[in-house]
């Protein structure tokens, strides 16, 4: 990390927390810059960083795509994108500072000459912008194109860290990281070879969310939660990542992958790792990764997959007062598709802390609402000195980490109903993560892009974590191969199989 650098800069004092960490002068090269991700997330995030004063004085965005554009056209497009999607208020003078910092290189991925031009463009920044070689390459492109682009970066030498006069080269890749363990290993090897493993940043944008980072604070900075965060007190854990939307325009990609590969393998397992990991020795990237990896490798699927690995596919129905069509009627989806749009699975974690505690994970599309949460459901009090009829409506205590929306924490516990009797009822107590505060809370991409430029890998899963996650998902895919997912009506909480999975042990899904 930049520590050595900061220690020689006499103006940086660790006690001086007002001075934000600002990256060295650098370039951000975006492949696939005309795509949705670049327009809606990356470029707006760059503007927001500029607005917050977190970009270095010399910062250039280089776009690469198959368009017949000049620098000006690119800048105009970027401006439109930033203006319509930025989180922070639009200020012309902030943009003015970025103006002239946009370069566009037209070309296709198999065009050697285009990559030579890109190489030259990045080199010229030394003279024109005082950027001595630092560049991050953002792959906002389909995974199929990864090998071609990586080979080009290797051929031109663009992927090499500059030995003379400093300068780093980093690469940022988005999910999917392969489609199973072998393909992920191949991809990881390729990218780790072309760059060095340390310079590869895999984006899981969930990790950029404030609430996810707050789980570390909740668990490891407080005395009251950690002592009960284990199998002595926890009955089970539910992790839900629900979307109300359908597959949108991702038909081709989605139908090849499905919910388990698209979401469970990355976001959901990362949430599980953070919620279940042991306390890291420190907060360095490596220390956190070590603990996450231990948990991921300790995951064990249930022996009876028939009952504990449930797939569903949305059928016609109504979502939020509007009729929607089923998955098989979506454009470009074959009538015979057996791809799942919902997956629920029960896992165990084989270590002392979690022995015997089931983890129920579920994710799906066209569910009643968009919500992501981790619910820790506690065991019942060992003995209650109340009459049964008084505690009839009393459930298990719960601690729910609401990741999105309404970021915060909910604690559910029993309380006396006002009146003369001793009747008890569940109440929930909410902590809104800063109430109205989401507005000023940075977007995940802002945080993650800044971390890439600073070289801080804390919030990025590495190749081993990706591998360990596929080791969980591959047997599920194998088990599901050749079967048909159970249909569920759009706008409901998924197939009945998922409910039965919990009912068999007397539990039920939390209504998220």
């Amino acid at each position: 990390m930049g520590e050595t650098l900061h220690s020689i800069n006499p103006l940086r004092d660790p006690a001086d927390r007002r001075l934000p960490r600002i990256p060295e002068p650098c370039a951000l090269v975006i492949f696939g810059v005309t795509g949705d991700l670049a327009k809606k997330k990356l470029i707006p995030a760059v503007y927001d960083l500029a607005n917050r004063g977190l970009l270095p004085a010399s910062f250039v965005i280089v776009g690469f795509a198959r368009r017949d554009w000049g620098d000006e056209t690119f800048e105009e497009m970027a401006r439109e994108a930033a203006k319509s999607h930025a989180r922070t208020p639009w200020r012309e003078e902030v943009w003015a500072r970025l103006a002239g910092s946009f370069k566009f290189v037209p070309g296709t991925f198999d065009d050697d000459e285009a990559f030579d031009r890109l190489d030259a463009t990045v080199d010229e920044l030394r003279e024109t912008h005082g950027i001595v070689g630092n560049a991050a390459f953002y792959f906002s492109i389909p995974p199929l194109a990864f090998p071609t682009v990586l080979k080009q970066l290797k051929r031109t030498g663009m992927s090499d860290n500059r030995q003379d006069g400093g300068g780093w080269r980093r690469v940022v890749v988005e999910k999917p990281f392969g489609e199973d363990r072998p393909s992920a290993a191949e991809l990881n090897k390729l990218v780790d070879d072309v760059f060095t493993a340390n310079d590869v940043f895999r984006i899981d944008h969930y990790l950029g969310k404030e609430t996810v980072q707050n789980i570390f604070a909740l668990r490891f900075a407080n005395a009251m939660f950690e002592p009960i965060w284990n199998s002595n007190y926890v009955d089970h854990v539910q992790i839900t990542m629900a979307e109300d939307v359908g597959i949108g325009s991702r038909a081709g990609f989605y139908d090849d992958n499905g919910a388990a590969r698209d979401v469970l393998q990355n976001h959901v397992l990362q949430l599980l790792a953070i919620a279940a990991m042991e306390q890291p020795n420190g907060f360095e990237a490596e220390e956190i990764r070590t603990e996450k990896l231990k948990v991921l490798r300790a995951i064990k699927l249930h022996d009876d997959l028939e009952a504990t690995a449930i797939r569903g596919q949305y059928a016609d129905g109504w979502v939020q007062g509007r009729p929607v069509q089923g998955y098989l009627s979506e454009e470009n989806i074959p009538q015979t598709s057996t791809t799942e749009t919902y997956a629920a699975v029960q896992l165990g974690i084989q270590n002392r802390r979690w022995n015997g505690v089931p983890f129920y994970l579920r994710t799906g599309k066209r569910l009643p609402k968009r919500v992501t949460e981790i619910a820790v459901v506690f065991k019942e009090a060992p003995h209650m000195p109340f009459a049964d009829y008084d505690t009839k409506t009393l459930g298990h205590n719960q601690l729910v980490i609401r990741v999105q929306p309404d970021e915060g924490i909910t604690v559910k516990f029993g309380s006396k109903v006002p009146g003369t009797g001793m009747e008890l009822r569940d109440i929930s107590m909410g902590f809104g993560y800063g109430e109205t505060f989401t507005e000023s809370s940075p977007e995940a991409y802002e945080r993650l892009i800044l971390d890439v430029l600073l070289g801080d890998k804390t919030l990025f899963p590495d190749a081993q974590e990706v591998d360990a996650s596929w080791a969980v998902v591959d047997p599920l895919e194998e088990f599901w191969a050749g079967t048909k997912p159970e249909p569920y009506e759009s706008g409901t909480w998924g197939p009945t199989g998922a409910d039965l999975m919990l009912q068999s042990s007397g539990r039920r899904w939390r209504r998220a």
Partner: protein
Amino acid sequence: MHLKDTTTGDIMKSLSKLLHEVGGASGLALNLVALTTEDEREEVEKAASFAAQEHPYRLIMAIPRDLDATEPRIDAEVTVGERLGSAEAIILRLDGPAASHLTSIVLPMLASDIPVVTWWLLDPVRYGLEQELRSFADRRITYSARAADPVQSLYRRAESYAAGDTDICWTRISLWRSLIASAFDGVTHAVEKIVIKANDDDPSAQLMAAWLKTRLGVAPEIVDTEVERNSEHLPAIASVAFTMAGGETMEVERQADGTTVLLQAGLPKRRQTLQGRTLGQLLAEELRHIDPDTAYRKVLDTFQEQYAAERASA
């Protein structure tokens, strides 16, 4: 809700009634006690409602009104989630002896066991409120640029410094400092000379000089310059120039419209924008850390020495 000639007990009853109506208490992070005048009330309210988005707090605003009155009197306005954004707010107008016994009024109104920050936006000396509220505040924020003699006022604050003090004049140079610090990433030579072009009587310029002296060991020369500012909450600094041991130079220069140029020997000119932030943004930065700002403490010490030495020689 407006309460005439009221008591703290009635004020708190009104607050809890309002909170009950909107559905119970919310997660408060701190108490903010603002001392201001009627003239500045709107400005303070605007700043406070902005900062409340980041730091949910109970705002207690105290406005001394008729200081000559013989009978103490408290008028209060209690609001939740109205013009003061998400803050629970109590606005007090105090007559006669009530103003000088502010502590006794504020203490029972604080939300329990969360930090207390006091913010003076009036001249504490003029209103005799310098010592009021000091004893239980975790942080004390002043704005010395608003005092009659700004640098002198900062010096007074340095003399009576207590852990947890800060001044908005320090807050408002954060962006400047950050720009200078990032220019120093990668600089290997020692600094030999520093020249700051600034308004000599701006406390921010004095703090900038003191910061550079603290960190670099070289006392900057301040060349008194009339600085045109397009925002009140900007430091009156036009440029900071460094000469390195190797003879190289580096300069950060801000023009009146906010365009800021970084000139570094051997490198092309680099432009940035440096704009003044709103009082609300400055307040929000100030509230981010609730423990004492030790970096500020060191800088303030340097300033105090320097100022005392200059006064002695003059």
